[in-house]
């Protein structure tokens, strides 16, 4: 099977400030890649660039998603093609009910695939099932999108959306931050439920505790806009005990010089 995602020499900047400085990464079907790295190293930027955020200008490199060029496509096209980003900071949208957004999102993807839109009854049945799995009370979907949600509720809501949309590539940007121990398990279960041979995931996290539940096939360390180290799941354990200091020492000289 061809890779789901292929990133070659990706560079991106914001306001002339380089943030991604040459990223190479290949993600095959069925794989889970964890991306770790210090604050400000560019993890969220990479996630946002893949999702099509226009704030960041791509200045070099190319990205192929399911064999086709990704970077020329609008964010909504990428989404409808099965690329999902769980945001590190989900935004609040006053006045728009969560369930309305969920339904609009699902039907946009279904239309794109040439499938009929789900009617209200079928949709509700589907959502109720997912809510249960996420241990979320039903009233959360009738509230305005993320408005007044607690930190943990916001994160669960992202995973709920993912569960409903069943993406081919899910990019989870710190899906675990701010979660209590029980919530962490629920979120991890939600993520694992979606693991399948045809799908792939990129899991951005700072902590081994998520990777205890969602065991990655590969771990990459991002530092100053480059992947400076890649390995198996044991790399995360090593980072947990030793921090990022030893990696920086091992980083290419050019990176260290800046």
């Amino acid at each position, binding site marked *: 099977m061809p890779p789901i995602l292929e990133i070659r020499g990706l560079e991106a900047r914001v306001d002339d400030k380089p943030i991604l400085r040459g990223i190479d990464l290949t993600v095959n079907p069925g794989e889970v890649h964890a991306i770790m790295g210090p604050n400000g190293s560019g993890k969220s930027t990479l996630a946002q660039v893949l999702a099509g955020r226009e*704030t960041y200008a791509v200045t070099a490199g190319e990205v192929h998603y399911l064999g086709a060029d990704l970077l020329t496509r609008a*964010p909504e096209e990428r989404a409808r093609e099965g690329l999902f980003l769980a945001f590190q900071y989900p935004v609040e949208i*006053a006045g*728009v009910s969560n369930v309305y957004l969920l339904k609009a999102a699902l039907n946009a993807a279904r239309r794109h695939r040439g499938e009929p839109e789900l009617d209200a009854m079928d949709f509700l049945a589907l959502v109720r099932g997912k809510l249960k799995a996420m241990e979320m009370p039903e009233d959360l979907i009738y509230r305005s999108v993320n408005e007044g949600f607690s930190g943990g509720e916001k994160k669960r809501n992202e995973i709920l959306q993912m569960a409903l949309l069943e993406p081919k590539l899910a990019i989870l940007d710190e899906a675990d931050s701010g979660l209590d121990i029980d919530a962490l398990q629920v979120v991890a279960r939600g993520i694992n439920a979606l693991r399948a041979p045809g799908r792939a995931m990129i899991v951005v996290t700072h902590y081994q505790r998520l990777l205890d539940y969602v065991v990655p096939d590969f771990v990459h360390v991002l530092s100053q806009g480059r992947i400076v180290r890649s390995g198996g799941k044991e790399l995360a354990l090593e980072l947990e005990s030793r921090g990022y200091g030893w990696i920086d020492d091992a980083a290419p000289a050019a990176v260290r010089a800046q």
Partner: protein
Amino acid sequence: MDTDTTHIDELISREYAHGFVTDIEADSVPPGLSEDVIRLISAKKNEPPFMLEWRLDAYRHWLTMREPDWSSIGHPPIDYQDIVYYSAPKAKKDGPKSLDEVDPELLRVYEKLGVPLKEREALAGVAVDAVFDSVSVGTTFKSRLAELGIIFCAFSEAVQEHPELVRQYLGSVVPRGDNFFAALNSAVFTDGSFCYIPKGVRCPMELSTYFRINAKDSGQFERTLIIADEGAYVSYLEGCTAPMRDENQLHAAVVELVALERAHIKYSTVQNWYPGDRDGKGGIYNFVTKRGDCRGAHSHIAWTQVETGSAITWKYPSCILRGDNSVGTFHSVALTNHRQQADTGTKMIHIGRNTRSTIVSKGISAGRGSNAYRGLVKVLKTAEGARNYTQCDSLLVGDRCAAHTFPYIEVRNPTAKVEHEASTSRIGEEQLFYCRQRGLSAEDAVSMIVNGFCKEVFKELPMEFAVEAQKLLGVSLEGSVG
């Protein structure tokens, strides 16, 4: 982030769909205003002497008045001698006796606007009075309404057929000299709708007037008078459009509502006059006086408005809560885009005991639009136990638009309770990106957010109108994605 601003701007750029001009022969008086012009208008309409006197009185009063300058709007001076005060599509013989005799060209205009006037094709459950420039060109379902004793006709017809009602109520809510524009309207108003619902009758269909400005340089000065007698109910809708022209055109209407004991009047407006182009060239100046008088105990007047058009909107639909236990409500959505300006709101005057009022105002500013809410809640000494709740929300699209809120509260009775809540939010690039990441197009995302913002007001509109209003906001915010 300049790119984000342009992106949102493109989203909200709009095409005005009703901008066509109809080539129809018109009977107009030359531009300018004088006692002679007023006499001419009155003669053309074959009015009884009391009407002419009324107009001349208003005119003389108007001459002593000055254009108001207290609102937050700005515009170049209006030359009142440059306006055509009467323009009517030329009638074949003596003017249409029934809808079958209406010029087919005119019927096509209304069809194109989505307001079919032929009763067979007409919207089920909506009776329409169509006003083209200065005159009413036809009213549907008239005879069916007459069976219930309901009078629904052109204002000029009411002057002929029901002079006693007109005489009794005209100017009883908005006096001739009330304000500059109301005085002007009283002097030169040409047509509009008249409606009387007799005691205890619940009007079985929505009554509606559709206003269309077509002629160049003409102003539209219509007058609407609705009277709901004791225990009567009526829901009335008003829609408006105008062609795209580079010149500004003046629209100065007066609407008077009278609700007697236990009567209930719902008055809904979807205003979509031509707003002018991107740079603020052209468009309608919409200076309107709308006021309802809850004259009887337990009466209820509800104003609902969706204002998306006009270069300048200046209007404050108000309620005088005279009857004990009477209720006034005001629900408003006002959208300004590009260089549009809106200064709108309401006045709730509590006079009777236990009178209640609710104000929900939603202002949306986009482009370089400017939107002001101006509201007065006045509780007189007599208004024991009066209650008001005001909620005033502003939504900004992009970062070059403006929103202002001016609540005025005057309370002279210590038992009154007045509550005011206000909020401002902005549709930012972050929200749009979030929605697009979920597969929604940017247009859909904006209209979803805007509709969510307006939902409390839309649910006050009659069904057909709610759909129309949603579409209208959609069109107003439509554009290409950059």
